[in-house]
């Protein structure tokens, strides 16, 4: 009896360990797989050329990713600039000031928003944001804009990542111990002073983590951006111009991959770029968080 129990235990242990190692290995497998597939184009063109030139003429064998990289950065940047302040303000209000009823209603709203698939945001974006920019907003600033633009993509992305940031921040702020707030208030601080100097301070690691996640999500989002960005290669001169972020590039062109040599490798390179940047970003922010923890012991 004991023997078979021990045997089952051994098998279970091995199974769990295997599963864990496999799961960890996926990260390296993905990175490695994409890297290997990018090698051909990297070897042929050289990393520097790939990253800094903007000529994208696959049928002529020219692959310059610069404008796609920049588009991605612009769009992500706008999304974060819009999303972060709004999310912070809203989360603080909901957790610190609002009544429990509002809190409950709001967390349902946030959960719902977080679950809506990107493609739906894309649909909504084409229906509302794009016409709005084209007809109402852009005319004040530029001569002409189709609405499919950096701004549209940025706004749609922002709306997509706001629920994500808020749901994390809501947890983070709730985790600040009640006693800490009371200690501050007992010293005569107002609610706002307490929020500023105690709650936010204590939550800094959480805020950083939420931001990192949001940036990762925005950086790599494909469908929603695809539908509103305009898919135009030239470098956008203003936020009202069309753009072409990396994920959109990959998605739009995968059908053409087989027709031109190196095209496939180029797109895999694009995917690898995405992978690499996001992994790097995540690892760096983790290191930063560890440092903060060591120094400030929040």
């Amino acid at each position, binding site marked *: 009896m004991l023997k078979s129990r*021990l045997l*089952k235990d051994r098998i279970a242990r091995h199974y769990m360990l295997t599963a864990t190692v496999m*799961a960890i290995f*996926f990260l390296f497998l993905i990175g490695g797989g994409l890297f290997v597939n990018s090698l051909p184009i990297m070897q042929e063109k050289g990393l520097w050329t790939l990253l800094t030139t903007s000529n994208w003429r696959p049928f002529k064998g020219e692959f310059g990713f610069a404008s796609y990289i920049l588009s991605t950065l612009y769009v992500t940047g706008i999304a974060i600039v819009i999303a972060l302040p709004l999310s912070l303000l809203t989360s603080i209000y909901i957790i610190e000031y609002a009544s429990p009823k509002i809190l409950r209603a709001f967390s349902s709203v946030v959960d719902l928003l977080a679950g809506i698939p990107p493609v739906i945001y894309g649909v909504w974006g084409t229906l509302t944001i794009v016409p709005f920019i084209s007809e109402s907003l852009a005319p004040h600033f530029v001569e002409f804009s189709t609405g499919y633009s950096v701004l549209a993509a940025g706004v749609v992305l922002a709306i997509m990542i706001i629920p994500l940031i808020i749901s994390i921040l809501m947890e983070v702020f709730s985790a600040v111990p009640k006693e800490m707030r009371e200690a501050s208030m007992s010293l005569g601080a107002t609610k*706002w002073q307490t929020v500023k100097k105690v709650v936010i301070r204590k939550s800094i690691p959480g805020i950083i983590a939420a931001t*990192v*996640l949001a940036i990762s999500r925005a950086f790599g989002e494909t469908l929603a951006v695809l539908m509103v960005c305009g898919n135009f290669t030239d470098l956008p001169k203003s936020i009202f111009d069309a753009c072409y972020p990396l994920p959109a590039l990959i998605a739009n062109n995968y059908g053409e991959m087989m027709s031109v040599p190196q095209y496939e490798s180029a797109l895999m390179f694009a995917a690898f770029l995405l992978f690499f940047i996001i992994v790097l970003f995540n*690892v760096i922010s983790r290191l930063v968080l560890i440092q903060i923890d060591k120094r400030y012991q929040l």
Partner: protein
Amino acid sequence: MSIKKLEEKIFKGLMIGSSMLIFGVLLYILYIIIKKGLPSLSWEMISQIPSGGFYLGKEGGILNAIMGSLYLIFFSVVISLLISVPVVMYLNFTLRKKSRFSAFARLTFDVLFGIPSIVYGAFGFTVMIFFGLQASLFGGIIAVSLLIIPVMIRSIDEVAVLIPVELIEATKSLGATNYETIKVIVRQLLPGISTAVLLSVGRGIGDGATVLFTAGYTDSIPTSLAQPTATLPLAIFFQLSSPIEEVQNRAYSAALILTVIILILSFSARYFSRRFSKNKI
């Protein structure tokens, strides 16, 4: 003092404004989807596959996409569970609490969680090329499973850490093996695992980038893993790109269908997680 009061007032105004803005945007999104999608919604849409002229505006429905997505997510969830549950059990209840291996593992999973879906799609594609597979249900399953494994791990991990240490010590002092202890814990965690499943389904079923390269697209319902399959997000996307208005309208109703599915999943997940916290030890 009055500058401070002013500051507080300004920020309070900003906070309330921003909350209302966000609340308003959600309602607006739902409103638009319903408004555009409801007119073209019909029983036909969810019960028929596209006919020959579907893309020209004639009869048919998106049953191919609905079934395709369902099959896809079902298999992906099964595979994902087979990996995620053991991983979480291992990290939380077999390894020592502060082992460096588990810290490293968790870091890896956090990173995997942040990787965009198109990367999983592209990787799935390379795997398929490597093995000489065609775009198919199977390809889609690979990509989607990879996508949702980190989601599931994170979600289950969140509830696993809540299990009190005393429960584990109690079973261990009765002479239970690690495996037997874990069986008990898993039973305890079933509501949490269901929530994780619901969340993963929500994430996986709505994602188009993973299946774009890997699952292909077709008008029929797949009958084997090797056949390509349609999926809801792609159905919406392709129909939206059509110049024919009738087809575009159908895209909106497909979007509505997908949104409704997601809403049902969300509510169920919330319901389950609330039940779980009520029944905690």
